[in-house]
């Protein structure tokens, strides 16, 4: 293959892969701590995208500036979903972990409700937000790097680093890690487990608020846009290692670059099949995922 085209493919793959990883961060965090597979993950990203869109359409706020609204809003939504909808299920379970199936079905219900509410409220039309900032692509040699995607990519890396530091260094972070290790032991040590769960869920969805604002400038926004991100996030998280923050980014990069290169040889449809093949292959060798503990 032409080395220039290969370079192009790698750059594109890294950018989009980093974004996949960033979007999957929250899913990984929530699963790692609560053991809840959040099926509504993509839908909450959709809420973030629409919030950014409407802030621009109604109040003229640039999508990049709307971060200060979308992040707290999505945090509150996540906090509320955990406190009101998922928590009762968790307290009914006497075992240490929630039966994955019942939590999955519950969040699948949340996903259906959110997506259809969005359809009712916003209608089926495709929308798009645009930033007023003029951002010409930066040139990496002969390869143009799209700035909006580069910002999304950088935000993913920074968010992952920030999350790791927060979990390691702060009291809240330590409490979250303790709860993830053993819920009952954490409770016995005086940790307010219901609050930790709600905050974890809130942080996981707040990240979607961030990416909602950052992606709104280049993703077509429809009420069911979340689904394509939701499914890919699952793959990314499992590939990278469930609950591993760096694993989420690494998983995203692997999928992104692999698909970008593979689709230069086969149609993109088949590239997606190949990336799922790669996914199975990696899990055969490392069942815990790339960065997961066995």
């Amino acid at each position, binding site marked *: 293959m*032409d080395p220039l*085209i290969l370079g*192009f*493919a790698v750059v*594109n*793959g890294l*950018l*989009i892969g980093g974004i996949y990883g960033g979007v999957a961060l929250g899913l990984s965090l929530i699963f790692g701590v609560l053991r809840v597979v959040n099926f509504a993950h993509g839908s909450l990203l959709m809420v973030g995208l629409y919030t950014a869109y409407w802030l621009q359409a109604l109040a003229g706020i640039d999508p990049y500036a709307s971060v200060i609204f979308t992040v707290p809003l999505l945090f509150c939504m996540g906090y509320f979903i955990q406190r009101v909808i998922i928590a009762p299920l968790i307290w009914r379970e006497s075992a240490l972990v929630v039966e994955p199936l019942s939590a999955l079905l519950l969040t699948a219900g949340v996903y259906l409700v959110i997506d259809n509410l969005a*359809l009712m409220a916003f*209608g*089926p*039309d*495709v*929308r*798009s937000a*645009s930033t007023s900032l003029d951002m010409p*692509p930066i040139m990496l040699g002969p390869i*143009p790097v*799209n700035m*909006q995607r580069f910002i999304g990519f950088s935000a993913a890396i920074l968010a992952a680093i920030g999350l790791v530091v927060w979990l390691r260094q702060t009291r809240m972070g330590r409490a979250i890690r303790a709860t993830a290790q053993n819920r009952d032991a954490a409770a016995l040590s005086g940790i307010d487990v219901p609050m930790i769960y709600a905050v974890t869920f809130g942080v996981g969805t707040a990240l979607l608020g961030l990416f909602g604002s950052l992606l709104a400038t*280049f*993703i*077509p926004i*429809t009420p*069911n*846009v979340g*689904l*394509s*991100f939701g499914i890919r996030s699952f793959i990314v998280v499992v590939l990278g290692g469930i609950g591993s923050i760096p694993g989420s980014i690494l998983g995203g990069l692997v999928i992104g670059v692999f*698909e*970008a290169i593979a*689709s*230069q040889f086969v*149609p*993109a*449809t088949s*590239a*997606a099949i190949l990336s799922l093949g790669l996914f199975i292959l990696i899990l055969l060798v490392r069942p815990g995922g790339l960065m997961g503990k066995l």
Partner: protein
Amino acid sequence: MTHSISRRGVLGIAATMALGSKAFAQPAEVVIGWILPLTGVSASVGQQTRVGAQIATDQINAAGGIKSLGGARIRLVFGDSQSKPDIGVSETERLIQRENVAAVAGAFNSAVTFPASEVAQRYKTPWLTMGAVKDEITERGFEYVFRLNNKAIYDAREQIDAMDFFKKETGKGPKTLAMFYEGSDWGRSHAANVRKLAKERGYDVVLDEAAPPNQVDFSSQLLKIRAAKPDALIVAFYTPDQLLLSRQMMEQRLDLPYGVHSVGGGTEDPAFYKAISPRAVAYYFVQEDRQVDALQGVRYPEYDDLEKKFRELLGYNMSAYGAQGFATMYVLKDALERAASSDRDKLRDALAKTDITSGPALYVGYQRIKFDEHGQNTFAHGAISQNLDGQRRTVWPAESRAKDIKPIWPVPAFGARS
């Protein structure tokens, strides 16, 4: 679901009992079913069609209904296909079995129309195809299936004819073509026709790529197009993917000397133009299912009413899909008048004898509607528009061109545009 149906059933019985014999004095009602993508990827198109069909129905009812049936009213029932074949099929069954419709129209997506019209054929219920172009829909020997609009082969021929024509006009034209299209029935059947025609007319297809629906990134595929260096690009995408593609092509400054040639779908959807920057779609060639410049010649008062209401309800001007929904209802009205019955077989026979040469049924821009033995309207045709100064203006056929319009051919590169 069962709940609402049984409740409705109970209400129905109650209403019948309450009305008693008075019910028979009311003019009868003809129920027409529509299968449309009211939610999902093609939802904006489905809603436009629904609004068009509803306005036509209101007009027909307000003007006294079906006169040969004693002023019978038309009532529409809608089934939402969500653009999914399996749901389209089960909704078609529901409309035919439970709602007892006289005929079904729909369903825009070829992938839905193909199996759903087979259900209609099985139950001997007339099916009036709207929007779907897949050739085989009217090539299965189904006597209950009709199609008003173009087949895929007409669409492809119009695109290639236009290129040939511009070449003849200017002495310049593309030698190599790339095709990039959505990977379901519509895109694939269009691509197969272009492939065939390109070979006959001496174009070299250098890239032939399908994409699954609802993409979030086309970088890889755009890179492939860049590497293949085609002179022109033929695309077939529904609205969300078309939006992504057009945006990314502008961001990456992917230039094609003889432009982007879209066969409709997203590029005919007003919702698409509301969401995209005019710069991204400048000089696009679109194969239109409706005359985009103001309809020439005869206009009927129905049109002004339609266009006004359409704008009020949806917030943008009339689209090809609204027009098709509107016209389909007038074709059905014509057949119902002649059949003087809502019996499915009689309606089918009347539809087969359709020969309309005037009136609002021709709103889409056809000169005549007459079905061949396969149920295809052989007088269906489209036009090719080019996006000039933010407006889609007809550039082909030459006789439909306005006096002040001249296609820009070849198209300027992104860098050279003002």
